[in-house]
């Protein structure tokens, strides 16, 4: 059942007017700066905030239709929501928290607790069920919150900045786990985030929201390769390449190797920011560890730089200054050499 929403909500200086559709099994990231209206959209989808105009539906099930006077309250929507700071009920044990949504929907206590324990085991908290939320670490609490949201088989999963309250190290682990759970989840997922890495790593499709409007929409790769505004370019330039780490080298799934500064192992994402990619017409002197031949596919100017989409063994996105672009005589189809310092390559567990 596809989630479709076209909603309008006035919000101080501007009106949030967003139009999104999310297919079953799809993860849509809503990416944008703080105050862009992302969380407003999520509150409308959840039924916590009635929209001023528009319609929200899951398949044939209409949740909001302002013209027809329909507003299904939050508690009657089949959805799960994960909040930024988990919001586990402090007076209930972790198991009771996860079982809460089943109990309110009339599932018997023993059955609900058994289902809750099953989900806690799935998120790696099998031993933590009897604890209080205050006794969990941030990462554990967010895993429990995910279990609580998913236990009732919701048609829609809403994630409101699910990783932003976590410290950097925990975020990596929880992000990787979240990816696996989202891959298994059959419903529609809407992920609100201001972190482009979350969007790139977790989403099938990205909408970028600015001042309550969608400024761009597409797959993470499309959006980072062809940013339509400066803001989008700055936000989502990242090239995210899947591969397998072996010490300080990563064998990319698409072929090619990338040298990295920090040793890692197992399945990872390699992230390269476009401003850290340098382009040359001839193979550069010396021996930089990351140097690949490539072909310029497209060039999109934004501000004082030009975003270059490269094709080759290692597909990358590079930002070069407009001056350098002209001096090198770059144009689509030109063969170039791309280099990146190992220290500027980030590695995320996958």
């Amino acid at each position, binding site marked *: 059942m596809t989630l479709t929403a076209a909603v309008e909500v006035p919000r101080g200086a501007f009106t949030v007017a967003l139009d999104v559709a999310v297919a079953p099994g799809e993860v849509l990231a809503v990416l944008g700066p703080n105050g862009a209206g992302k969380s407003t959209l999520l509150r409308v989808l959840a039924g916590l905030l009635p929209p001023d105009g528009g319609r929200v539906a899951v398949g044939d099930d209409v949740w909001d239709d302002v013209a027809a006077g329909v507003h299904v309250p939050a508690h009657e929507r089949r959805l799960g929501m994960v909040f930024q700071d988990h919001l586990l009920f402090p007076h209930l044990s972790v198991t009771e928290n996860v079982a809460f*949504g089943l109990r*309110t929907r009339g599932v018997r206590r023993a059955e609900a607790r058994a289902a809750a324990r099953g989900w806690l085991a799935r998120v790696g908290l099998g031993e933590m069920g009897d604890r209080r939320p205050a006794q969990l670490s941030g990462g554990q609490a967010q895993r429990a919150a995910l279990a609580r*949201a998913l236990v009732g088989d919701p048609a829609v999963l809403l994630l409101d900045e699910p990783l932003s309250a976590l410290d950097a190290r925990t975020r990596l682990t929880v992000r990787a786990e979240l990816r696996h759970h989202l891959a298994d989840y059959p419903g529609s997922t809407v992920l609100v985030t201001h972190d482009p890495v979350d969007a790139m790593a977790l989403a099938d499709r990205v909408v970028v929201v600015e001042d309550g409007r969608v400024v761009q929409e597409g797959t993470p790769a499309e959006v980072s390769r062809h940013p339509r505004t400066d803001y989008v370019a700055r936000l989502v330039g990242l090239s995210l390449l899947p591969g397998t780490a072996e010490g300080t080298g990563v064998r990319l799934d698409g072929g090619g190797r990338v040298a990295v500064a920090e040793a890692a192992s197992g399945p990872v994402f390699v992230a390269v920011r476009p401003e850290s990619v340098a382009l040359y017409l001839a193979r550069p002197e010396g021996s930089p560890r990351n140097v690949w031949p490539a072909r310029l596919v497209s060039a999109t100017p934004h501000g004082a730089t030009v975003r270059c989409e490269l094709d080759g063994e290692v597909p990358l996105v590079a930002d070069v200054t407009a001056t350098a672009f002209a001096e090198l005589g770059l144009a689509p189809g030109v063969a170039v050499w791309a280099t990146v310092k190992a220290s500027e390559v980030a590695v995320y567990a996958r």
Partner: protein
Amino acid sequence: MRRRRETGVPAPLLVPAAVAVAFLVLPLAGLLVRTPWADLPAQLAEPAVGQALRLSLVSATLATGVSLLLGVPLAWVLARSRARGRSVLRALVTVPLVLPPVVGGVALFLVLGRQGIVGRWLDEAFGVTIPFTTTAVVIAETFVAMPFLVISVEGALRAADTRFEDAAATLGADRWTTFRRVTLPLVAPGVAAGAVLCWARALGEFGATITFAGNFPGTTQTMPLAVYLELQSDPPAAIVLSVLLLAVSLGTLLLLRDRWLTRSGAAA
């Protein structure tokens, strides 16, 4: 091990503060000094004392129960409803906090008395008369004490994070379920503190009780009324009753010390 604060207390503040402490503590010390400790067991064994104490405890507890049943929902309405006129409602509800209790007693008498608006109807329809009964004691105490509970619980509700209620709604809980299973447990410390405060206020109630319920031993003569009466006829008995009330009050304070004497447990 010297940890002196950078700024001492200036004399213009220190002296009045010391006087205030003496003013608050000396009368209680005086009460304890004048207590006929040797006669205490005998005095406490007096049937009249036991009667007044039992009546006080029962009526204060009933008044607290009624206040909880009616006051917690009222606090929720004041804290959560977005209806207009809410500030007027809050002002009306808290009037008994500042109203002289005697005036409250007169007002109750005019409404619930045998000639009162509601009282006459109760008398004619059901043959029920309220004034000068134990029921009247409970009503008078509830009238005076419930606002303490309402204010305390409303404060706790306002301090509570409403996003927990949002989370409950996304988990299928309607507002009533959310109130029972999430909101109420979250503000339970505030409710408990409000209930204790309410109970202590009800226990000490004098003005509204004597006006509306009278002073009949066994049915309406609570401890404070007994103290007042004994002071005129048998001062040592009044002192003993007073010490007993003081002990109950100190017990109440001890019960709440974590919440009030250290300002840490404020926003639960």
